[in-house]
């Protein structure tokens, strides 16, 4: 055939074939016909599923007396270690070696001495704090170290103050998990009004930090004429130590936090509650409430009025900020990314924690556990970036103090949503008296931040700072809420918070509300497309050959 005819043949063919090719192009997403694809079921393997309660220390739950210190019962799944409490009450210098060995405290973590006012309790308090990184990075591999899960599979990078500890920071040699004393939130510190308190920051971290005693009566300079306000210009650099000195004259719920690169360091978790208790005779205080929550050895003044006492620490995390320490190891890179690349004015809050945990882990150690007809003291601190609107289902509580200042009788407001701005503290009197106002009867009453983001974990409901005010007879022997089995199957699962599971993936409605499957490929179309595409290529090659032959 002559080239001219060949080209005349090929060109119209191409004109027809190219639109046809576009017409039959297969898609990665297609519209369903009459019958949409069937529901698919994703099953999590065992490695993704958590046991709701591992029940590691059942013996820690009952009321007990150790070394003469009374420790209230804590029926929850993960009660505080009673030896931590005894040591916090008596001081590391006053407990037996046997008791101290049951804890992770360093021997000089809490030194209590000198009953200056001769009222039967120590008045010189020396506290040592370290700075600990949780879920940090390692140059030795793709893993995080000193891990602390805030929820199933959720490990944001965090910084916390921790009581000076000894021994391994990990649970054991084969583990990457942080030891139980190294956790969020930073511990609640309790001292007595009029105590001479020496707070030493031993900066064990790789970036500079300080301690600023927010709302706590403190002079601007310490006895040595050095900084006592914990401001940026007096940062305590890595490997250095600095002692802040106070003798607070005013009692109340206050705060302590880092004031270096404050926005970022605060949001990384360097904040905690600092509670100054009324001066009372024989008032041995629980200096540290590790992980906040129930105070198992309340002060004399609290015990006079209240049946129980709880510290509620609300905290939020921006996952973008939190991931900075997980993506590099070089402190210069971390410093640059955190201070300059990251922009706090463009930040979001993705995780919301109560006492260091997000739902469902809040059910292990952040529940309020009540009996009927109790009066319970709550110290609520908002250490989030945004406001908290705390709501307790089935109850109306009463504000007794704001920002550590007792409210006069006439201004003690009873309500069911408590608006707490960032860094504010609200002391509440919660009454479990079934009178239709303070309480509507016993139950497993949810309590949570009513700001819609607060009940989610990176947008996944139920999550965030949701917890339960549980009446005792609604708890099982492990301290977990009864009648929640189906929910536990759903949420004690990493895949759920990784957003891999449909919300209603089991039960009667699984087929109707589970995940829609994929459409089968339309093979007729794919084959036709392939053939046409091949033909076009061949025709193009042919015409190229023809053109070349023509030229030569």
């Amino acid at each position, binding site marked *: 055939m002559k080239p001219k*005819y060949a080209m005349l043949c090929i060109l119209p*063919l191409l004109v027809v074939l190219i639109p046809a090719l576009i017409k039959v192009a297969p898609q990665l997403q297609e519209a369903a016909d009459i019958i949409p694809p069937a529901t698919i079921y994703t099953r999590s393997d065992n490695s993704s599923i958590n046991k709701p309660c591992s029940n590691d220390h059942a013996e820690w739950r009952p009321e007990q007396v150790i070394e003469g210190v009374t420790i209230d019962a804590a029926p929850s799944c993960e009660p505080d270690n009673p030896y931590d409490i005894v040591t916090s009450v008596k001081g590391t210098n006053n407990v037996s070696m046997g008791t101290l060995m049951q804890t992770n405290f360093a021997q000089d973590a809490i030194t209590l001495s000198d009953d200056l006012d001769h009222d039967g309790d120590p008045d010189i308090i020396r506290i040592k704090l370290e700075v600990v990184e949780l879920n940090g990075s390692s140059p030795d591999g793709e893993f995080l170290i000193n891990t602390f899960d805030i929820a199933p599979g959720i490990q944001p990078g965090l910084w916390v103050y921790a009581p000076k500890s000894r021994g391994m920071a990990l649970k054991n040699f084969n583990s990457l998990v942080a030891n139980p004393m190294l956790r969020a939130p930073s511990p609640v510190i309790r001292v007595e009004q009029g105590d001479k308190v020496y707070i030493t920051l031993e900066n064990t971290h790789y970036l500079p930090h300080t301690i600023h005693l927010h709302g706590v009566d403190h002079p601007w300079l310490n006895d040595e004429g050095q900084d006592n306000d914990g401001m940026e210009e007096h940062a305590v650099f890595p490997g250095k130590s600095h002692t802040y000195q106070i003798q607070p004259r005013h009692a109340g719920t206050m705060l302590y936090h880092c004031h270096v690169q404050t926005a970022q360091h605060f949001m990384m978790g360097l904040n905690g509650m600092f509670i100054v208790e009324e001066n009372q005779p024989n008032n041995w205080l629980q200096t540290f409430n590790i992980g906040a929550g129930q105070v198992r050895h309340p002060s004399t003044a609290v015990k006079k009025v209240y049946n129980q006492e709880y510290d509620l620490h609300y905290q939020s995390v921006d996952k973008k900020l939190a991931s900075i320490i997980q993506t590099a190891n070089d402190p210069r890179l971390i410093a640059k990314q955190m201070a300059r690349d990251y922009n706090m004015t463009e930040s979001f809050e993705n995780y919301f924690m109560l006492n260091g945990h997000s739902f469902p882990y809040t059910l292990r150690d952040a529940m309020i556990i009540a009996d009927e007809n109790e009066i319970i003291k709550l110290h609520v601190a908002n250490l989030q970036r945004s406001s908290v609107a705390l709501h307790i289902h089935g109850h109306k509580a009463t504000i007794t103090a704001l920002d550590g200042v007792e409210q006069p009788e006439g201004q003690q407001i009873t309500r069911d949503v408590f608006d707490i701005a960032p860094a504010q503290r609200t002391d509440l009197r919660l009454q479990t008296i079934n009178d239709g106002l303070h309480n509507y009867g016993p139950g497993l009453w949810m309590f949570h931040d009513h700001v819609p983001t607060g009940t989610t974990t990176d947008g996944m409901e139920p999550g965030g700072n949701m917890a339960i005010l549980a009446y005792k007879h609604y708890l099982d022997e492990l301290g977990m809420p009864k009648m929640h089995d189906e929910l536990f199957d759903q949420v004690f699962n990493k895949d759920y918070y990784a957003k891999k599971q449909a919300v209603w993936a089991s039960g009667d409605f699984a*087929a*109707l509300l589970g995940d829609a499957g994929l*459409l089968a*490929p339309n093979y007729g179309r794919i084959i036709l497309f*392939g*053939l046409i595409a*091949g033909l076009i290529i061949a025709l193009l090659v042919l015409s190229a050959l023809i053109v070349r032959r023509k030229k030569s």
Partner: protein
Amino acid sequence: MKTLVLTLLMLCASSVVTAMDMDGMLMDDKGMIMNANSDTLPRDCTAISETVDITIRAGQQHAQKFTGKMFAFDQQEWNIKPCAKINITFINDDQIRHQLMIHGLPGYLYPDGMFHLELYGEGQLQASLIMPSLKKTYLVHCELPQHMEKGMKAQLKVDGGNGDLPSIPGLTAPVKADIYPVDWSSLTTAILILCVLVGCFMPFIIILNAKRFKEPIKKLLSTLKRGKSVAPTESS
């Protein structure tokens, strides 16, 4: 004169409270019937051609057999003769309100062109209507917000009907279909590549065996010259 005889049967025959009867509507605490008609013939009918008893169940459980739906009737299509009388037993299997509405009926007999049964909860009621003679497809649905959209849609065809309505579960395609990802596997890719290769070699095979294909190619060329497109696979 037009009289409407309304029958209202409740699942629990016991506590039937005072039913309200006004202008073609019968209502009590269990549900209501609007525009039932068991004896007035449409103008175009001289006699009732057949009497059909239809039981229609409504509820969430009837959607189980359809993917991507939430509420449904137990059937999606009925075929009846022109001028048929239909005795409908409407059963609600849910604990919520459902309706059975038939639209497009002649307005002189059925105000607003509508026949309407409604159950306020689990229960049952009966009512009749007489269809006109027109060859037509009538919409049957529950008009609660999103109930028809999520599957409570059916069609009643008289004399074979005048077409199908869209998005009837399991029966007709939607007008605005949802988009789903395609299950594209490595096998799919392999088939595609194979087809491209086959398509690629086809013209060369044809050229190499030109003599054998001379006649068909000539034909092809002549058709092309006449300006008609030809499917690419025809050459074999």
